[in-house]
């Protein structure tokens, strides 16, 4: 018997009618969970019957929106509805067993809506990465621009102090690369001096041709 699992979005208005239908059809309530998002709290109600596990999701419940309780249909859900109230601040209306925000002894209000500093930093970084990728895609769609212009545009949008640091780091990198290139030319000259003159002339010609080609590119 294969386990069939499904996720389906429903509106807040149809939550009670969906629960009533499932109750009539002999489903049992498995659980309710909340996910904190930028658009509010997403609620997932899970029901099971034989080998089926159906998850109904109500998206973006904002502060001040009342969610009807389904405890009168499935009393077993009372710990999860009270948990949603205590940990996520979801306003559940009409609970049969309502602990009035005192179901869990928590040190801070609605703790699951608070991000830790590490998580916030990670989220900001991901958002910046996504924004940069979107900007790059937009530029590519519009015909593209020179990398230097792209970099300058990025630096212009940055915190000035951070931008100055990035500029200094890039200048140092350029200087290092130039020094390394000069060193490399000296090494080649030393090697050519020890070579057979005919062979050295051929290598010199090849190097100059390569340089000219790179310059044209």
């Amino acid at each position, binding site marked *: 018997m294969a386990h069939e699992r499904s996720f389906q979005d429903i509106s807040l208005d149809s939550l009670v009618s969906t629960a009533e239908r499932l109750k009539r059809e002999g489903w049992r309530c*498995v659980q309710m969970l909340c996910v*904190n998002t930028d658009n509010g709290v997403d609620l997932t109600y899970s029901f099971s019957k034989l080998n089926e596990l159906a998850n109904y999701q109500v998206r973006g419940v904002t502060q001040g929106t009342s969610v009807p309780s389904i405890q009168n249909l499935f009393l077993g859900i009372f710990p999860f509805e009270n948990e949603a109230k205590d940990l996520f601040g979801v306003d559940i209306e009409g609970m049969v067993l309502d602990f009035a925000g005192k179901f869990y002894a928590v040190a801070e209000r609605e703790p699951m809506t608070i991000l830790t500093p590490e998580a916030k930093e990670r989220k900001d970084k991901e958002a910046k990465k996504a924004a940069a990728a979107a900007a790059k895609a937009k530029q590519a769609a519009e015909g593209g621009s020179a990398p230097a212009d792209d970099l300058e545009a990025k630096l212009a949008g940055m915190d000035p102090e951070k931008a100055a640091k990035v500029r200094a780091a890039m200048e140092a990198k350029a200087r290092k690369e130039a020094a390394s290139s000069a060193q490399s030319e000296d090494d080649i000259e030393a090697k050519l001096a020890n070579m057979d003159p005919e062979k050295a002339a051929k290598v010199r010609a090849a190097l100059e041709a390569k340089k000219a080609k790179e310059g044209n590119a």
Partner: protein
Amino acid sequence: MGQHTVIPFGPQHPVLPEPLHLDLVVDDEVVVEAIPQIGFIHRGLERLTQTRDYNQFIYIAERICGICAFGHSLGYAETIETLMGVEIPKRAEYLRVILHELSRVHSHLLWLGLAADAFGYESLFMHCWRLRERVLDVFEATTGGRVILSAVLVGGMVRDQDAATLNMMRETLDGIKDEYAQLCKAFLEDSSVRNRLVGVGTITTEEALDYSMVGPFARASNVNNDVRMLGKGGYADLSDFQPILETDGDCFARAKVRALEVLQSIDIINEMVDKIPDGPVFEEVKGAPVAGAQACNTLEQPRGECYYYALGNGTKYLERMRMRTPTSINLAGMAQALKGCDLADVNMIVLTIDPCISCTER
């Protein structure tokens, strides 16, 4: 009609290994209503996904509960494997079933001991826990831990077990089975046990369905919702699996389901040991769950069905991890079982639900 009185039961009570509080509304010696309350040991484990990546979180998952530690790490790993579309080696699936069923044996022996202690059968309690010690010894020999096993990884198992270890496991269980058969006889046939449990805290099949009950608590009321029937992982290769069901729905039926499940679990382990295929036990999982990807999973823990949910956000840190444990969905059924019971029976009824509050609160 007498005056109603409210008697507080717990959070500290001799019969409760964990803090559960009940407001018992009584009329003389009869319980009219029971209002459960938890919330004393909420640890916020689900929030730790913010600071632990999906590989590290398995060690948090198995610390949800000391009794179902292996089951929680297994349920979590299976959910992440579903989320990331990973298939694990067949040998790992078998090893997971073996250790999970062994956990069920140890959990049920622990519960049977506690139940015997609660109804005053001290020697039965000691024998149950003596046998349980031998199961813990097997855990120690195979994983290095007696309670927190840390044997599961996302992608398989931490280590393989050689043929000699599997044989040792089988021999130990055969020895336990013989001794346990005698204890089982005491549980199921002794008049002092029956006098204390038969007809107490009865839940009908309709009530069990109505309150969405799970595990042995539901199966004692003839509700067939054992997740192992779905044949996930190694369970798919069992020659025959029939959940143990009882129809009476009372405390004795709940004890009987658990008592018989010990023998059933030993048979499952023996079959898995016989059939276990050769091969690797771990497949490395690379990358991170896709942003917005979600997966859910259920697992039959010793106390009943456990539900797991994971939501990815494109990083190695999960956006959300949810673990719904069996006791949390059984609380409403427990309150129903207490309605109309004698005050002296409250402890037995609460115990036959096998409540695990640290699981429930996480």
